[in-house]
């Protein structure tokens, strides 16, 4: 027993034994590898939660600047002051894009076509949101951390080309027979394993991106739009790409979660007044009536954008975001809905890029939106019958039609603030006016932020490349939010 004390490694006289630690440093706290079906739920939740969530993108970014919402406290972004640390979704790189890329790589290694295809669609979706928000981004050099720590930036045009190619590949490689290498109902939170729908999402996203290029490259836009439509689009609301959240924690929708502990966002006066003047039956879905102390006076009222804290009506006069999201944990949040696809088709048809009846598609798009929000067919009919809603009301010009499509799309895209903002920047419909305290463009119609900043850290971690990208695009700085992006054509 007493010699036991001496029986440490040296006493064994085998110095090599001192360096033998078999297995001690194997990390027991997580898997070293997992198959794509275990990655996809995280990719979907992160993508929907980030793009349509509360901070920086939807509520505090694109949707705020599209004047759906207003900041009722801490009104910085409402005045176009972007808090430090804000970016146009840079975090998607490691939360979604890298994970989707691993799905693609694992799909290649395992010859599992559907793993690859779904990975490509998710990666393309995330990239499209990021480039529409920020401009040029690392693409070719991206996701190569093992070998390349300072990725160069590709132009937005190159990224769009890559995304079109990616989506084309995704659609072509989908294996409808699925089988063992597909996704189960529990791993695929969007389509529950229905690969045909993934193909439709792939084409519909391609159509969305094609339409984005209407100002800058109509030829490319036309050909991509036609190809997308030929591939087969989302053709019913049941095929809409969406995540329906659950009633219990931790799978509740982010708007609901935020409203349990904070009360920072109300409805924008711009949006509420517009819907009121159009007698839009979706207003009670999008907004809640205010809490006027005189109950009989309660109504829908928005707060003007771009005021100082404490300015404007007291907050109990301000409507909050609709109960559909704010008070309902198990809300659905959309990545790409059937109604949007119809609007995209309407625009493509109106422009003559595809065959189809633009008027009918326009009317169908509004109807689909109404249905999605539970508006009755009768109320929908009444709305459609209004002269200014009717397709020819603004005059039979293409410009007038496009304006109608764009306005209706803006209304229908509520709670998908990033895409709405992209479309507002492309079409300038509606022509939004910054609030009186905005740090630029106050009171000037059409002057809203044109982009969100790059990640602050890029200036430290990848300085040369971000500085080159900033210069190439003519930005004043990496956090310049006034300079229009390439896709806008301005």
């Amino acid at each position, binding site marked *: 027993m*007493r*010699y036991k*004390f001496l029986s*440490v*490694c*040296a*006493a064994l006289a085998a*110095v090599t034994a*001192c*360096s033998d*630690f078999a297995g*001690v*440093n194997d*990390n027991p*706290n*997580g*898997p*070293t*590898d*997992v198959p794509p079906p*275990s*990655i*996809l*739920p*995280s990719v979907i*939740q*992160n993508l929907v939660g980030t793009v349509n969530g509360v901070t920086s993108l939807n509520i505090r970014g694109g949707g705020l600047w599209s004047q759906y919402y207003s900041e009722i406290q801490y009104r910085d972004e409402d005045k176009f*002051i972007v808090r*430090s*640390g804000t970016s146009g979704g840079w975090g998607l*790189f*490691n939360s979604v894009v*890298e*994970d989707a890329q691993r799905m693609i790589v694992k799909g290649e290694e395992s010859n599992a076509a559907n793993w690859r295809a779904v990975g490509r669609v998710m990666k393309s979706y995330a990239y499209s949101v990021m480039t529409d928000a920020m401009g040029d*981004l690392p693409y070719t050099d991206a*996701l*190569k*951390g*093992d070998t390349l*720590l300072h*990725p160069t930036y590709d132009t937005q045009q190159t990224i769009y080309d890559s995304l079109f190619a990616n989506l084309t590949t995704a659609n072509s490689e989908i294996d409808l027979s699925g089988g063992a290498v597909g996704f189960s109902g*529990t791993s695929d939170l969007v389509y529950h394993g229905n690969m045909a729908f993934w193909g439709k999402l792939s084409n519909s996203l391609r159509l969305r991106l094609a339409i984005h290029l209407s100002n800058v490259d109509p030829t490319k836009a036309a050909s991509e739009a036609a190809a997308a439509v030929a591939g087969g689009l989302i053709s019913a609301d049941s095929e809409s790409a969406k995540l329906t959240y*659950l009633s*219990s*924690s*931790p*799978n509740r929708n982010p708007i609901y979660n935020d*409203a*349990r502990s904070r*009360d920072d966002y109300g409805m924008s006066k711009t949006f509420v007044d517009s819907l009121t003047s159009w007698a839009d039956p979706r207003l009670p879905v999008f907004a809640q009536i205010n*809490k006027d102390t005189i109950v009989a006076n309660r109504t829908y009222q928005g707060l003007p954008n771009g005021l100082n804290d*404490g300015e404007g009506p*007291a*907050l*109990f006069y301000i409507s909050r975001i609709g109960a559909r999201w704010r008070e309902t944990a198990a809300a659905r949040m959309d990545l790409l809905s059937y109604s949007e696809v119809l609007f995209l088709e309407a625009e493509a048809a109106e422009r003559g890029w595809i065959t189809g009846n633009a008027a009918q598609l326009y009317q169908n798009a509004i109807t689909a939106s109404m249905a999605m929000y539970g508006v009755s067919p009768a109320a929908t009919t009444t709305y459609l019958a209004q002269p200014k809603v009717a397709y020819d009301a603004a005059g039979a010009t293409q410009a007038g039609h496009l304006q109608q499509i764009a306005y209706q799309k803006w209304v229908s895209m509520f709670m998908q603030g990033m895409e709405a903002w992209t479309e507002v920047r492309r079409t300038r419909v509606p022509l939004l006016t910054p609030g009186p305290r905005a740090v630029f463009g106050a009171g000037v119609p059409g002057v809203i932020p044109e982009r969100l900043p790059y*990640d602050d*850290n890029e200036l*430290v*971690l*990848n300085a040369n490349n971000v500085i080159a990208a900033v210069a190439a695009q003519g930005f004043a700085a990496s956090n310049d939010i006034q300079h229009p992006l390439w896709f806008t054509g301005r």
Partner: protein
Amino acid sequence: MADNRWFFRSLVTLGLVLFGLPVVANAQTTVSGQVKTSVGGTPLVGVLVSAPALKVSATTDNGGNYSLTLPAGTTGNVTLKAQRIGYQTGSVQIAVSGAAVQQDITLEEGAIELQQVVVTALGIEREQRTLPYAAQSLSGDRLTDVPTTNVVSALQGNVAGVQVTNSANPFGSARIVVRGASSILGQNQPLIIVDGIPIDNSAASNTGYGSGSLGGYDVGNAAADISGDNIASVTVLKGPNAAALYGARAANGAIVYTTKNGKGAPNTGFGVTASFGATTETPLRLPQYQNRYGQGFYGEFNFVDGNFGGKNDGADESWGPLMDGRTAGCVYHTLPNGDPDYAAGYDQSKPCNQFFGVGPWAAHPNNVRDFWQTGMMINANIAVARSSDRSHVRLSVGRTNESGMYPDNTNNRTDIALSGGTQVSNHWSAEASVNYINDGMKNQPAQAYEEIDPMQGFIWFGRQVDTKLLKQNLYRDPNDPFTQQILIGNPNMRTDAPIPYSWNYSYHPSPYWMASVKTTDYARNRGLGHASVTYKVNDWLSVTGRMGRDWYQNQFRANYPVNNISPFYQGGLIDVGETRSETNSDFLITAERQLSSDLKLTIDGGGNQRKNDFNTNIGQVNELVIPGVYTLANSNGQPSTSLLISHKRVNSLYGSASFNYKDWLNVDVTGRNDWSSTLPENANSLFYPSIGAAFIFTDALGLQTSWLSYGKIRASWTRVGNDTDPYQLSAVYGAGTPWAGSPSFTAPDRLPNSFLKPEETTGEEIGADLGFLHDKLILNATVYQKNTTNQILPVSISGATGYTSAVVNSGEVQNRGFELAANITPVEKPDFRWNVIVNWAKNSNKVLSLYGGVQRIVVGSYWNVNVTADSGQPYGNLVGYKWARDNAGHILVDSTGLPMQDATQTVLGNYNPDWVGGITNSFSYKRFNLSFSFDGQMGGQVYSVTKWFGQYSGVLSNTLAGRETDWNSPGYIVPNAIYGNGPLSGQADTSHVLAQDYWHNTFYAQEPGIFDATYFKLRELRLAYTLPANVSHFIGFSDAVVAVVGRNLLLFANQNQIDPETAFDTGNRQGVENGQLPTARSIGITMSVRP
């Protein structure tokens, strides 16, 4: 639990020791006597009395008595040496002629010793005079004279080069750094050793945002568990040179505690030593609040539902109407569009509604001070000990109870220590100890950007709020109409649970509600022990085998009631269970040979195997189904749970050789090889050498004079390491949010490194120890430099790589500094002694390079300020936004007169002080002893979010600027400012901006949150009286002392808002403050007796 066998092994060993107690009697010449202090004549326990030439020694008992048995036949002159830490070594010559000799010895005090024995690395005892590096020792008394609950805190100001940052909470943690931070993102605190065994000193992380491993609560650093009453001495091995034998853990120095044992205790009966202390606690400092304007915005306030249902009644800021006692007219008349009509004035027809109804709109200047109670700390320790000439045993029991300043907060610690040793035969000896510690903390306040921190709640506050009303009314009557109104405005509130009474329902539960209904419970159970056996082969060679283990379990629970507002408005709980252990098995062979009459060689060689194991379980419920039932099963939705495990092994071989020539030249060489499980298999072996020399030139060259009594110079060089954590070499997938109970995974964000090496620190130091005027003035001075390279950095990388960070070996940090310790005895008379101890150190720190041309690494962030390592600059910069300025230094304001944010972030300050120091004066007059210590730091900055947001919210006194007359009058003109844009660009700013607009605008720059962190504290004060011997004998003791003591009595600083000695945790993100809990100012009495 196989891993607990060590405990039983220790017990068995201890049992053998206790019941073995062999007593061997010899009839030879004995020398006996008493050892006393030179002033006051107090008997000294634990003094080692030896006759070096005869190789015999003994230790004094609790009465200060010793008895030495000389070898038979000894005659002639014999030199006796008496050594004790804290005292200068005494030496007397006696004449031996066969008869028993009676010889008393007196020792002089001196905390910095030239001749004393110190415990160095691996528990090797060395004479201070032979050491080639700086090491400073303190006796255990210094740690307990003025009671503190943290033995690390007690080093503050007492050791040159040591910087301690205490938390405000007496049971909270203390960060200790010796000679500056050298690791950018790794460990910068020294290794803590107790009786030769490394112990864990980790502390719960607190991010300051209510998260971190314990959600904002500070339960203390683990080394605080060691009771000061059990410490015989502590040695600070200041640099890597002194700690070189610890190899991969030596870079930050080591703190070596030696615990008390039964040596020298009476050999009949049991000697009882006891101490008792009782102190009261009150806040040392609270922020300076303004008392002129109440809750609201732009001069208006009217309470309806506390959630913006009324006029600004959801506001948690104080920009409301002037608190002039009005009962009506707190809102303006309105214009037709609803905007206030300032011209028409306040609407006197409307009463001033507050959270309790209508009442005078008046200040409650003490509403924060009133919240804090007078705390009380009681500590008691009793120890019994017995010894024979071959065996000894000591049992000690200690208990500390604190009822804190925070309502319902109670903390306690129980400590039981048992130690013993025996000389089994001429060859075999053994010793063992077991120490069990239990900490319990109930209802601690937290420090975080959350409502769980009351001081954070008082930053966002209405200055008119009468906290007494909140105290008297914890719950609202659910049926009263006022409550119904609140429920309408707060639809998230649940009516199936008690409805809290508060002044604001948008963000703030009442602080009393938080204190009494939100409950936390923390317990730490710890077992520390070691056993060793020594075999003495012959008179120059011995072998020791030793095993030690430090094991503890943390259990933390926080319950959040339903309707808590924030966090967990629907109620919730956090439960953390954590087990940590470190087990060390080692052996040491010691050989000591006189090679010639002038040259002595001491060789130590050994090996060690170390195992670190860690396991934590966390369960969290974010929403309770049934109010008041705090179980994981009562979770609405899936509770979040996590499990984390970590294992590490390190094997080592080491050795040292010490050559001593004529007792005036000492040369030391050490080497250690570590093999670590955390490093790549083919490259996990690392060698750490050191070499040093000490030269006593006064002895060698015969230079002793009456003014220079002693002089030594020393120099050493070493290369040591700094550990890395397990699992850095490869990555695993992280857990994504599970969906409907099914798991999901996400790719790792940290790029691993399969070629990792440990950090490497090269240290050089030279120093001198000088004694002047018969050692009335003793100076120790050291100049050092240490360079740390191969820093292990989880550096941030562009997210576009697919990762957010990568682990690399890169970067170099240099620390250079100068330490000075002085011990001065200006007066020494039989009845009066005045002693001054000064410790002073200046460390200059520079980040020489970072990874691959990177200019900045962010160590941590807090509220828009980054704590950074910037290449070419000192470590610990505070980086944020300043106001834009022109070249002449004018602040640039926009056309409305508000300062504009600078284009880029700049360095606002640095958290490291220019120097740190402490001074202790002690006066002994007959039976009285008065001592007091000041310590503090010069320079350094702190980013105070209390200041930054306290200005934003209008609660601090300086926000009266701009509203001296009324809330909107006269307005604020930014001093020394020019317009930076608009038509007036370049002209002097003359715009009056509303105070609220001005201070709200400070959100865009962190410059207005920076404070100078210079401070000095009257840290300790003690006035002690030793009872006359006849009185103490009458009550049964040889020695009894009563004292009045105080701690943290006075604070001197360059600002009046916070205590600059502040930290969230013991990590490297220092220099940031938010909602600081008040530092406890303690005043009380202590009593102690010795047998």
